[in-house]
């Protein structure tokens, strides 16, 4: 067992990125993720890495494209309004099939919104990260330890599938302090024959055994663009088949199933303890990957439970994926707060009771 340290979620994520081999941090400060940048500003010079505060979020994500095109692990981090700005770059990353690691420590929106925690960028992360057909791998940590482990995992998945991995955290995850172990094991190195690494000083195209690489997302021939999209989605299918992560909590005998990620999964666990003391059999399915979403797990759960409650800090976004995954064969209720307000376990218990009543018998 490795030695533990007490870290803020944002700091832990930053240190994990360094351990994952990231030596290029390009970012721009915004509450509540600024500690990522502050930590990188202190650490990168110590290890010969690059910390760069770009002139804007858009500049930062485009720098990530550059670093990634050169075959290096790069990251940027921001919070909701800043991630909106990055959406163009996210689309270009997908169009170029480049790996990247992007962090969204969400705050309340829309617009400038507030600075308190939120989960209202679920749609943006899982369905509409930018224009065009593409997906990102979306990872939702629910503890400071997972800010570490999912960061490590995120860099790996990005290289493995040449995709963007996004950590979709919330202000609480970024700001809370918990003891963590930073022992993450070995990094897997992936060959990057596509990287733009020069031609060894020669202008002859084949001087290093391959033609010079070009990274580009402009494909003007419709058939060619279509072919690339089909190929990309074949790769996404592999991700959906192999990379789904979730946690089941007290689901063995559950009549009611809560679905929650990040901070609301923690509130839900506290609510489950209270509800079970009152005799209601309730459990939790916590998606750890929001894309790929644990569809099969929820579909199977729908055969066993009477109702679902989606617990979210939004006006109801993940609930649509729960309804789709379960084919609406059970009622799906929404327990939500928004704007930076976190629901209490008691509010979740009230919703559990409502679900218990309308769920009917199996």
């Amino acid at each position: 067992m490795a030695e533990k340290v007490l870290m803020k979620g944002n700091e832990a994520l930053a240190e994990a990125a360094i351990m994952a081999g990231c030596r290029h941090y390009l970012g721009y400060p915004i509450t509540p993720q600024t500690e990522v940048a502050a930590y990188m500003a202190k650490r990168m010079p110590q290890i010969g890495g690059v910390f760069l505060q770009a002139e804007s979020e858009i500049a930062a994500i485009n720098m990530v494209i550059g670093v990634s095109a050169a075959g290096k692990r790069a990251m940027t981090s921001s919070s909701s309004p800043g991630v909106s700005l990055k959406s163009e770059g996210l689309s270009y990353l997908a169009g170029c099939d480049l790996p990247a690691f992007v962090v969204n420590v969400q705050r309340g929106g829309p617009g400038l919104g507030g600075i308190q925690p939120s989960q209202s960028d679920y749609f943006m992360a899982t369905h509409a990260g930018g224009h065009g057909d593409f997906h990102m791998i979306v990872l939702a940590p629910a503890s400071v330890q997972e800010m570490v482990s999912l960061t490590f995992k995120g860099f790996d998945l990005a290289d493995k599938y040449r995709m963007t991995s996004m950590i979709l955290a919330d202000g609480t995850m970024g700001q809370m302090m918990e003891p963590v172990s930073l022992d993450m094991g070995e990094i897997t190195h992936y060959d990057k024959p596509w990287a733009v690494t020069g031609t060894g000083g020669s202008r002859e195209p084949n001087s290093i055994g391959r033609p010079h690489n070009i990274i580009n997302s402009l494909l003007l021939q419709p058939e060619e663009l279509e072919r690339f999209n089909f190929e990309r989605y074949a790769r996404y299918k592999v991700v959906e088949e192999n990379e789904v992560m979730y946690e089941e909590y007290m689901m063995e005998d559950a009549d009611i199933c809560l679905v929650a990620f990040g901070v609301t999964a923690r509130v839900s666990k506290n609510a489950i303890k209270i509800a079970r003391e009152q005799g209601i059999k309730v459990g939790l399915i916590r998606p750890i990957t929001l894309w790929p979403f644990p569809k099969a797990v929820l579909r199977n759960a729908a055969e066993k439970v009477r109702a679902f409650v989606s617990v979210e800090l939004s006006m109801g976004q993940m609930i649509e994926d729960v309804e789709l995954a379960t084919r609406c064969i059970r009622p799906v209720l929404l327990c939500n707060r928004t704007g930076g307000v976190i629901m209490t376990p008691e509010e979740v218990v009230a919703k559990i009771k409502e679900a218990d009543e309308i769920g009917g018998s199996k």
Partner: protein
Amino acid sequence: MDFKRITLFSGHYGSGKTNLAVNYAMLLRKEKENVAIADLDIVNPYFRTKDSEDELKGVGIRLISSEFANSNVDLPALPADAYTMIDDKSMYAVVDVGGDDRGALALGRYTDAIKAENNFEMLFVINKYRPLTRDVKSTIRVMEEIESACRIRFTGVVNNSNLGMETTVEDVLETVEYAEEISKIAEIPVKLTSVRRDISGEVQKKLENVWAIDIHFKREWSI
């Protein structure tokens, strides 16, 4: 305990200053009538003294805090009434200074007055389990950065080394040497070792000046 009129808690970001300041004010209130806690943390927008507002007011401790603390307004503003702690000589003030040199810079506004009155304690809060203050050398560097930012020298060390709710008695005892080394280099005493109340009894058997503290930031998502 020998209380100075102004007690300042400063240290590395996340070392536990805010929680210690709240605990200290509670302790102080048991002996003194006019007690206030001033939140000068302009760095951290999330966990602040204001989280304990009801608890503090309930025992008659005045909270001097920015209008914007814990609001959705991300303004690094000092509380308008912070100068009360300087002017009102009958007040016992506990000051929660922001983390690191960046946080301590704001204290400079009050430095000359604090020094002139010369009835203060400036406590350096340390936590060996924080990644950027794992060793004596880096902790001393943080200390010097804070001192030059706010222009006040520390008068004592509070060893608040902890791993949150997972802290064991051994975790605390392992840091004694670290705290003593810092004390020796900085030429200031380790005034207190702050320990979560439920394990403080055990630590007390092996260590002097143990301060049993309560954790004041339990939230709906706390496990």
